[in-house]
C-alpha cells in the first residue's frame, strides 16, 4: 500500500470507531484523527459535533480554551486522541521525554491536557503511527498520564485502544493490558511481536487482518471531506490527496 493509501485506511478505520459518538474532540496537530472525525460526521452525521482544537472554523466552543476541559469533566466529550513519545503495556503514556525528569534527553513538548483528559473522556484512542520498540516500551520513563487507576480514584474515562501503522489493539481494562485485535495489510503477527516492547494478549492462530476501507466511505473521503481536511490541515492534505 502507498503511504497515502495507508493513511486513508487509518482515517477510515478511525472513522468507524467514532460512529457511536456525539462529540469528538481532536488536537490541532492530529490530521489523521481530525480527518477521521470529519469523515464520520460527513458520512453518518454521527458524531454530530466535531471540535478541532486550534482551528477557528471547526471549533464551536466559545467559552475559552478551558471549555474543552469543562466539557470533558461533565461527560460531554465522547472520544479524544492521545499519542506519546512512549506508550507502555499498561497504556501509560509519556509526552515529557526520555531519561530522567527534569533533564530529559530528548525533552518533548510536555504533558498538555493528557493528565486530565485521559481520566475523563470515555473513549480515548491512542494513536501513534510509528510502531517500534522505541515507542512501544515495557515501562514509560515518565507517566504523563496513567492508563489505569486504583478503583477509588475518580475516573470516568481511559484508553479504548491503540492504533499504529501496523495494527489495532484494544485495551482490556479488567486485565490492564492490550490485546491485539487486527493486523494491517503489510504487517504480520511476527512483525508486531518483533516491534512491540511490551507484552500483549493475542490469538496465535486467528488474529484477523484489518479490513480494507469500505469503498463507499473512501469515496466520501475523497469527494466530500477532502476539501474540509484541506481547510484545517493543508500540508497533510497535500500529502494524501491529489487536488
Amino acid at each position: 500500500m502507498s503511504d497515502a493509501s495507508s493513511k486513508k485506511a487509518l482515517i477510515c478505520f478511525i472513522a468507524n470507531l467514532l460512529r457511536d459518538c456525539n462529540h469528538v474532540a481532536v488536537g490541532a496537530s492530529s490530521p489523521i484523527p481530525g480527518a477521521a472525525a470529519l469523515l464520520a460526521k460527513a458520512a453518518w452525521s454521527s458524531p454530530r459535533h466535531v471540535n478541532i482544537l486550534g482551528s477557528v472554523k471547526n471549533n464551536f466552543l466559545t467559552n475559552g480554551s478551558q471549555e474543552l476541559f469543562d466539557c470533558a469533566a461533565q461527560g460531554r466529550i465522547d472520544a479524544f486522541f492521545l499519542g506519546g513519545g512512549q506508550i507502555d503495556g499498561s497504556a501509560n503514556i509519556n509526552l515529557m521525554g526520555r531519561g530522567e525528569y527534569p533533564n530529559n534527553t530528548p525533552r518533548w513538548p510536555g504533558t498538555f491536557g493528557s493528565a486530565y483528559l485521559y481520566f475523563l473522556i470515555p473513549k480515548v484512542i491512542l494513536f501513534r503511527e510509528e510502531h517500534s520498540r522505541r515507542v512501544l516500551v515495557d515501562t514509560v520513563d515518565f507517566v504523563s498520564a496513567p492508563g489505569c487507576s486504583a478503583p477509588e480514584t475518580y475516573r470516568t474515562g481511559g484508553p479504548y485502544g491503540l492504533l499504529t501503522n501496523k495494527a489495532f489493539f484494544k485495551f482490556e481494562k479488567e486485565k490492564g493490558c492490550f490485546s491485539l485485535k487486527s493486523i494491517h495489510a503489510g504487517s504480520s503477527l511476527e512483525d508486531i511481536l518483533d516491534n512491540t516492547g511490551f507484552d500483549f494478549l493475542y490469538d496465535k492462530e486467528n488474529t484477523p487482518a484489518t479490513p480494507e476501507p469500505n469503498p463507499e466511505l473512501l469515496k466520501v473521503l475523497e469527494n466530500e471531506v477532502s476539501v474540509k481536511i484541506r481547510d484545517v490541515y493543508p500540508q497533510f492534505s497535500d500529502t494524501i490527496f491529489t487536488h
Partner: protein
Amino acid sequence: MIMKIEELASLIKDGCKLAIPADYSGVAMAVTRELIRQKKKKLHIIGVPTSGLQSELLIGAGCVSVLESSALTLGEYNPASRFSAAIKSGSIKLIDATCPAIHAGLQASQKGLPFMPLRGIIGSDILKNHPDWKVIQNPFSQDDDKIVAIPAIKPDVALFHAPFADREGNVWVGRRRELVHMTQASKTAYVSVEKIVDGNLLDDETLAAGVLPNLYVGAVAEAPSGCWPLSFWHGEGEDKEHLDHYKAVAGTQDGFDEYLQQFIFDGEIP
C-alpha cells in the same frame, strides 16, 4: 494607557511573572522582540496553558528563569532547540503542569480563591514533581475520594495580542475568553493590537460580548501584524518560510544568536 510598544515593554520588569497565551490565542511577538532588545532577565513565564516560539526565543535569549507551562511546542517546527538546550544545561527551572491545571490556578486567582479542586492527575508523574499541588479528600464524599487542589497562580502581567482596542483601553478579544480569564487572574494586562479604533467598544452590545474592559488593562500598543511570524486567529497565517529558517538555524547557539541579531536586534522584518 495607549503607548508605543517600546514603552509597553519597558513596563515589564526583570523578575516579572508573565502570563502568555498559547499560539492559537494571539501571541504578542512584536512586544516579545522588544523584551529581548531590552534584555529582560529572570522572567517567570506562565504558558496559558502552553507556549511556543515566544518562550523558545525568550529562553534562548536568556530572559527566562522559570517556565511554568503544560508544554512548549513549535508544532511542526519542533524540536524547540533552545528550550531543549536550556533543559540540558539546567539554566531554567521547570514547573510542568497539565493544561486544565493552569486554567484552574488562574481561575482561582481570578476569583480571589486560595485554590481550585481539579479531577484527574492522580497517578501522573506531573503531580509527583509539581512543587505546589496538594491532594485533599473531597469533603462531600463519605468514601475515600481524593482530588487535587491547585493553588492560585497570580501573574503580575498578562501579555497578548488582540484584534483591536479603543482609546480608553477596552480590548476586543472575541471568543478567545482564555484571554479574559488570564487577564483577570493577573495584576494587569499589557496588550498589543492590530489597530486602535474610535469610539467606545462597550457602546455596541454585539461588540461588547467580546470585550475585555479597561478596568483590567494597564497598557495598549498598536502593533500591526503583531503576531508575526506566528499566525493570528483574527489575521494572517503563519510565515512558514521564516519558521523553517528558524528551525534550520536554531539548532546551535551560534545560529540562534545570528537569528537574534538579524531579526531582533537589527529588526529585519519582512
